[in-house]
């Protein structure tokens, strides 16, 4: 797979604050790549440099083979190949869903079919409604429709499912996977760890302007080999033990209880546990 984004030694400061302190990244064609990190970690700055919204201080950046700092006509040709879903806009909404999507389609050389896109984001029934009548989640789906109308090779998604109900989130995840399967590369920033786990092929954790680790959600932070926590209820109350061999412990307990173990659970570290540990947050194992 060829790389769609390649970043070497990227740095950016605001005054005396170093927001990005030397980041290296390679994102391959056709993958969903999630950037995780607390607020102020340098996540937004990094993505905005990749999107061409911000200038960098130093480092090499290539997005679809082009420096995102590009201007003029070449910049337009480059933007024609990318889609950006920012945090929601809040304009008056005097246009209908379809009018808006159809208008944005006119900015691009090879737009997708308007009805098809409205359908894909699940707004077919709202197609003729004014944007002002949409719920927060529906507005978000419109944002996504505007991000993909130009048939982008690369799609940036910033906190895409904020304000979604669980059902809408699932539907949205399916849409994003679908785009990935049709060859679109997706860069996702999110605060929802379950979203990163459900969608991302790889995740990068950013903290204090630097990459802590890049891995798959399953392997991040040694998660696959981390200790399991086995909990159960004994005569003396709730018990819990951390072990790297939970099967043996359960076997022993089964013998002790002579059958069913009351309230048995076996818990591996969630992506959230690992993530919080990596960024130096609360230790949830205690």
């Amino acid at each position: 797979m060829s790389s769609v984004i390649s970043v070497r030694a990227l740095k950016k400061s605001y005054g005396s604050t170093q927001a990005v302190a030397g980041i290296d990244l390679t994102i391959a064609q056709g993958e969903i790549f999630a950037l995780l990190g607390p607020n102020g970690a340098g996540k937004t700055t990094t993505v905005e440099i990749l999107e061409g919204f911000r200038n960098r201080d130093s480092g090499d950046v290539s997005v679809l083979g082009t420096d995102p700092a590009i201007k003029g006509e070449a910049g337009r040709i480059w933007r024609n190949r990318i889609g950006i879903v920012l945090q929601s806009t809040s304009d008056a909404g005097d246009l209908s869903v379809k009018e808006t999507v159809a208008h944005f389609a006119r900015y691009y050389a090879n737009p997708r079919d308007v009805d098809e896109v409205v359908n894909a984001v699940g707004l077919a029934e709202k197609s003729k409604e004014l944007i002002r009548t949409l719920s927060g989640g529906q507005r978000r789906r419109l944002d996504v429709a505007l991000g993909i109308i130009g048939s982008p090779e690369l799609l940036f998604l910033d906190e895409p499912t904020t304000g979604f109900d669980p059902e809408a989130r699932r539907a949205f995840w399916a849409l994003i996977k679908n785009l990935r399967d049709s060859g679109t590369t997706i860069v996702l920033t999110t605060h929802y760890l379950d979203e990163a786990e459900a969608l991302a092929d790889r995740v990068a954790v950013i903290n204090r302007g630097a990459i802590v680790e890049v891995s798959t959600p399953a392997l991040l932070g040694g998660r696959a080999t981390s200790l399991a926590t086995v909990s159960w209820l004994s005569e003396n109350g709730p018990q819990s033990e951390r072990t790297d061999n939970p099967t043996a412990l359960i076997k022993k307990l089964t013998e002790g209880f002579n059958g069913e173990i009351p309230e048995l659970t076996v818990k591996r570290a969630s992506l959230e546990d690992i993530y919080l540990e990596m960024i130096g947050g609360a230790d949830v194992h205690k």
Partner: protein
Amino acid sequence: MSTSKVPTKKVPSALTIGIARGGLEIKQFMRQRESVVFTLAFPIMLLAIFGSVFTNELTDGVTFSQYFVAGMIASGLVNTGFQQLAIMIPVERDFGTLKRLRGTPMPASSYFIGKAIVVFVTMAFQVLLLLIAGVLFFGVNLPTDPAKWFTFTWLIILGSAASTSLGIAFSVIPKSGRSASAVVSPVVIILQFFSGVFFVFTDLPGWMQQVAAIFPLKWMTQGMRSVFLPDSFATAEVAGSWETEKTFLIILAWFIAGLIISIRTFKWDRQ
């Protein structure tokens, strides 16, 4: 879902996108009913008020309304273009509308063209209604000389273009959408007083006339007076003539200055 691509197809031109934006802006404007009614009816209301207050004739057959309609059209150019844009663009910036556009292949020039179109169309409607109301209710006489209509036409076109470019240029000054109205409105009102929109210009103090002569509104108003007043009035102007060529050049210079500032300083984002 297909992502079929025809790599040879070109990104639409700035003009094509600009015209599409003009259509969209007009549609959006028409759907804000209060603002449509206000924009179109306000000059008529002012004409009605001033026409009722000053009922005397300036000379035989020339009412104050006849004098005032010129000021109303000129100040409509400033309200519809400069004021409207310098207030609305910071709001669009706050809403994130501009940043979203920045992330598409739409160039700034298309955005400017769209604004120019909506300003011109709104202006055309506003003037049409004002003239109809003026003729029907306030005894305004329309010029019959084709040369005056020619002046009228280029004044509306060049005036709304200058007003648009200056509105976009000024839109970088208000720090937020909420403060925009407070920053922009006083500028416009003072300019209107200084430029002889509400009074007979030559009755104003000399220093006020000199300050006004720097800005385009004075010239738009004077240009419109040359259209609506008999030529005998030209001698009453400060220079003793309509100064038509000078008017054209000064408004053109402001248009170009506004355009250069807009291209150099336009902000898509709040920070």
